[in-house]
């Protein structure tokens, strides 16, 4: 499994949904799981984004599918960064 960091910003529509049905947050996580990925950490943040999610997914294609699926509802705008745990990254730099 690879790690991805998904930055999400709510649209006006998304904000409305969140206010009316806070439990929607959990439902989205279950839908992501149904598509073969898993949300390992999730934070609501102040600043340029609304949520930061750390996902585990088998590959880029799965993540692309999730992005399209969630994005198509018009409630969030997603930016996804492929990520590598820093220890693995350091090892890679050292050429091991």
């Amino acid at each position, binding site marked *: 499994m690879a*790690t991805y*960091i998904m930055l999400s910003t709510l649209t006006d529509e998304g904000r409305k949904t*969140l*206010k009316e049905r*806070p*439990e929607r*947050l*959990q439902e989205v996580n279950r839908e992501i799981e149904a598509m073969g990925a898993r949300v390992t*950490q*999730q*934070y*609501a*943040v*102040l*600043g*340029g*984004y609304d949520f*930061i999610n*750390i996902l585990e997914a088998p590959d880029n294609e799965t993540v692309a599918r999730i992005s399209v699926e969630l994005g198509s509802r018009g409630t969030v705008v997603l*930016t*996804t*960064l*492929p*990520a*590598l*745990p*820093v220890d693995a*990254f*350091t090892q890679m*730099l*050292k050429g091991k």
Partner: protein
Amino acid sequence: MGTYVVFTKLTPQGRKNLHADPDRLRVVTQQAEKLGAKVVQQYATIGQYDFVTVIEAPDNAAVQGIGAEISGLGTVKLTTFPAIKMDRFEQLLKMEPYRTEPHHWQTSFWARAVRRIGRQWVITRHVNKYCKPLTVEGRENLKDHKGGAIVIANHSSHMDSPVVLSALPERIRGKVLLAAAADKFYASRRKRHWFYSLFHSTFPVHRGGGVKQLEYPMSLLRRGWSIIIYPEGGRSKTGQIQRFKAGPAIMAMQGKVPVIPIYIEGLREVMPKGQREPRPGPVFARIGRPVSLEGVTSVSEATAMLENAMRELAGLPPHRASAPAAAAAAPAAAPAQAGGGGA
């Protein structure tokens, strides 16, 4: 402790350094930890940022300090977002608006008179009906006590407050107010805030603390009033005494008043958390000797003293030294964790 997500972009200099010495990364992490942050997770990413790090730090100011320190090296550009854990965020979303301003008239002469007349109907009637019988021990411990005090009690039932009010001698009861969770008793949809403030002697406290929470209770103490507060925060589900929050100790130390512990037994059977209709049963209220915090300098030590006074009343062994919960509320962090009331 707060959670923060830090996005890092390397500068050309930073890129050069990393290439020369990949272990630089760990050095930066260690430096952040030395400055008081804890790195929870860290990833190297592809995209507009090079690294994404989840850290825990005491507060916004600490994060700004750490950020300034690290970006001062000229190797990175940081973008930091204060973060809220998702389950807590969901709670926040579901929270209703509530009143936080106390009804200042509640300490007036007429309010005290009306409260006293209404007590039979609002408080005593229920206590007599459901506490069969109510036995109060240790009243003699308050013989020498004068003036204001912080009254603390263990909390497992909504009936605790009527029992504490009934157990106190009239000279304290006549000038006492009770810290009540604002989100519960002063939620906007409830219309009878004045009724609680008048007859139940409550004032709203925002759960989670903050220095501002202390203003009203401190002004009460200065005027010779006493405050009833449940140092465990919310009601205990198991009936066991939970760890104390720092608020009551801070108030007693700042207000220079003693703390009167009351241990209540039996109410868990009468009306536990989650039950609406009480079942009558025997109830004991044991009043302990007032605990003076004079000369105690640390909040954690004072909190531990209060906890042990309560445990002694309950016939439990004291906690060893200052245990984790009390230690976490060390002086520096204390103002942020004050409060801790809530019925």
